[in-house]
């Protein structure tokens, strides 16, 4: 039996991780102990131990504080102390500091990984890693990039999936410097991560504003949305037959072009009930209108213009909802899928259907996860490269990183590589278009 190890990096990663584990425990109480625990955690004396690794520079009281135990009471975390790594001092919001200063942190992470490997060599082997991080902060981007490099170097056979939260100028607490951080991290992700799921705070803040009817770019609200999405994405690894390798093979066609985008419906506040949220059919229709896409690319998604290489749809709800969902999936979603460009290839492109149990306070929910070259290309150009070019044209904030040997060539190299990535994506779009034309001709 194989095991997946989640690694939570930086403040955002740890916050997401805390909520993910909370959901998992909630789910586990319904399902019994065996399946999920063997995959993500361990049981000792009927106590649940999350098996995640928590990495952060600087202790500011933000380790996951409380987990609910079986009795429903909140008690101090039973996170294994030895799985939490910290180092005195902060990354001060700088990629350079996190990338070059996270060294001794990574050694201890590596020691733990070896120990876990030893422990599970005979009955469970590590199959892959799931990384949670944010692209804006210094710890998430810097230590995250260094860890990605190390994982790729020391475990070339094992797959790495990253879940990355991007930030924007209007919502970020780190004005302007986040632009460099996310550029470097994106470049490292393209190199070292086998699949990357892109979530965008800018889009989420917009959604939260309309859903919660309050103009608060508040991390509490965003996390409420993020944690649900993350839980559904992690749902791809819940059962034993869904391996990380299988996930990567299904979604990624070409090694560099490994960025996936997600959409989640409904984004609801408390006590709200829009018309579409009352039925599963309404939800599926809403989801496939792509108005709840969780990345902001500066335009609306057009189903006939944008290409989709692979697609997964997860419907959550109670038992009857899941039954009707399977019907909907076969009838309605099939129609929707066929209307997508690229998915017209039908059986040649992978399409995942699955159902999960109810999330808290949501009767039904639909999550779409897709590899769409045209959407991510626009995200890359519009949100990462364009701000970088503007800022770097004035050489603003460049001097901070010089003492960490991250100087002009480093910047230019990262920019150049991402320029090549854009070209890769363009060729990818062209290939898919060509494939569609060929497919139609053959018919």
């Amino acid at each position, binding site marked *: 039996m194989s095991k997946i190890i989640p690694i939570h990096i930086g403040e955002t990663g740890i916050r997401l991780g805390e909520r993910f584990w909370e959901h998992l425990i909630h789910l586990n109480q319904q399902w019994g102990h065996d399946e999920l625990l063997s995959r993500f955690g361990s049981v000792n004396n009927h106590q649940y131990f999350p098996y995640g690794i928590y990495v952060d520079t600087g202790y500011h009281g933000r380790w996951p*504080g409380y987990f609910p135990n079986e009795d429903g*009471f909140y008690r101090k975390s039973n996170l294994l102390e030895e799985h939490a790594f910290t180092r005195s001092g902060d990354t001060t919001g700088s990629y350079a500091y996190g990338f070059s200063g996270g060294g001794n942190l990574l050694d201890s992470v590596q020691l733990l990984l070896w120990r876990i490997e030893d422990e599970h060599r005979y009955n469970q082997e590590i199959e892959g890693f799931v990384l949670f991080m944010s692209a804006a902060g210094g710890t998430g981007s810097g230590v995250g990039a260094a860890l990605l490099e190390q994982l790729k170097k020391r475990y070339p056979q094992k797959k790495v999936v990253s879940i990355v939260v991007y930030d924007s100028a209007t919502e970020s607490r780190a004005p*302007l410097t986040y632009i460099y951080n996310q550029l470097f991290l994106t470049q490292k992700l393209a190199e070292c991560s086998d699949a990357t799921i892109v979530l965008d705070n800018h889009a989420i803040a917009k959604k939260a504003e309309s859903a919660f009817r309050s103009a608060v770019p508040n991390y509490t609200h965003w996390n409420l949305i993020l944690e649900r999405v993350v839980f559904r994405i992690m749902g791809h690894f819940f059962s034993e037959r869904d391996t990380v390798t299988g996930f990567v093979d299904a979604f990624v066609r070409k090694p560099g072009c490994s960025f996936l985008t997600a959409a989640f419906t409904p984004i609801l506040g408390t006590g709200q009930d829009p018309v579409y949220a009352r039925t599963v059919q309404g939800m599926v229709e809403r989801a496939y209108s792509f108005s709840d896409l969780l990345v902001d690319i500066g335009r609306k998604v057009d189903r006939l213009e944008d290409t989709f290489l692979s697609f997964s749809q997860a419907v959550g709800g109670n038992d009857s909802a899941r039954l009707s969902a399977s019907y909907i999936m076969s009838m309605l979603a099939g129609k929707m899928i066929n209307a997508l460009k690229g998915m017209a290839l039908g059986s040649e492109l992978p399409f995942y259907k699955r159902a999960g149990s109810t999330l808290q306070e949501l009767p039904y929910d639909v999550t779409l996860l897709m590899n769409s070259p045209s959407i991510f290309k626009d995200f890359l150009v519009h949100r990462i490269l364009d701000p970088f070019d503007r800022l770097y044209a004035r050489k603003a904030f460049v*001097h901070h990183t010089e003492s960490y040997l991250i100087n002009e060539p480093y910047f230019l190299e990262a920019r150049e590589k991402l320029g090549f990535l854009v070209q890769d994506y363009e060729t990818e779009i062209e290939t898919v278009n060509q494939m569609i034309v060929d497919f139609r001709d053959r018919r």
Partner: protein
Amino acid sequence: MRKILCIQLGRTGLFLGDSFWTALRDDNRILPSGKYRGPHRSRSKGYKNQEAYRIAFGEYMDKAASRLLEVGTFFDQTSSSLFTPRSLLIDTDPTRLENAAHFVAPPHIDNWIIGNEDADANWAKGYHVRGPELIDQIVTAVEAQTIAHDLDGIILFHSLGGGTGSGLGTLLLERLRASRSYFGTLATVSVLPSPRMQENVLEPYNAVLGLSKIAKLADLCFLVENEALRNIAMVHLRQKDPTYADLNLVAGRALAGLARLISSLGLPRLRGYLRPERWMNLITVSTAQFQPHDTSLLPRDLLQQVLAVYNGLVAFRPEDGKALIRYLLFRGSIDRNATIKEIRHLRNQLPPPFPDWPTNSMVPHFQDWGLAHFKNNLTMVSNHTGIKMALVRLLKDFNQLYGKRKFVSAYTSHGMPESEFMEAARALQDLIQAYQAFENQQVDRDEDEEE
């Protein structure tokens, strides 16, 4: 980790620092005796069971612990758990430190460093004569603090008009930069002299000589202009002839807001966020209210006040330059929704600094605790290129004096070469030109797109 050492240097440094510590101590709920009162604690409303009480108590203790971390940024905890300011009091004049015994928030007596004789409000005397007598003692004390506390940064309170603050301050920064044991951030709170409140004629000389070097040595210079403080005291405190005590009160409250921002973000992080270019280290601080208010103001009023001309600690008009980054720290009871809406509204009204600058330059922060004397308050820390106007005014005063070579012999007699005057003036002139060049910089975006 985020521990800051303050150094109060010279007369202005001592008294400004004292009003700063008083304001900060009140904000952090530390009593004059040094006892920490902890966060507000809600009355027990009859908990359902013991478990519920334990949960509530645990949350309270967590809150208290996290606030204690922030309090520890600026305050030392003694073995009897009293909180004293982590600060060095330094003056060349022994008589003045006797006054410091009457300070409201004095640090421990070990942190006082006293010279033998005054620097006579002369930069050259402070730098060349009185400074070397004390400097080794000071650097040793700073190194001891660094080892004891794992310091994040140092903030130096001093004036640029006097001899000790300007001359010895320059020497101290030079030595700390060259020191092998201290690598942290160096920030200064520098008080610029003003002609209307002049005490001696040498102030423009001292200020130009000091600022030209300090602007290169320090990571962040939070400038305070006496002229602006005077305006604030006249407008807000309604005093016809404000004294230095009033000015210190005004500046101390504004700087306490800055300190809260530093303790929540960390000084190195703030340095990283505030400076687009390495040389661009002159920072302005503005506050919304100076007169204690019983009513809580609306976010719109707070923002209007803080953007007004008369509320900055350096006086310049908004059209003098461009606001690159603005940090807004809202403290006290405030409606976050209304604030965010108001800021978005402002973002649309105020033009961005450059058409292609990738952000809107306004970053809000909220702290619902840690504010004494006010219901709510707003502190703005901004990097605004209009700050060059303060340098222009200073150079004008300097040129009036130096045009006729007045009092030059007072400096050369202490071993300072005369060429340093021109070098200092030229350095400031270059800084002003650099600001202008940055404002007028045109960027060709076409080249980038071709690449």
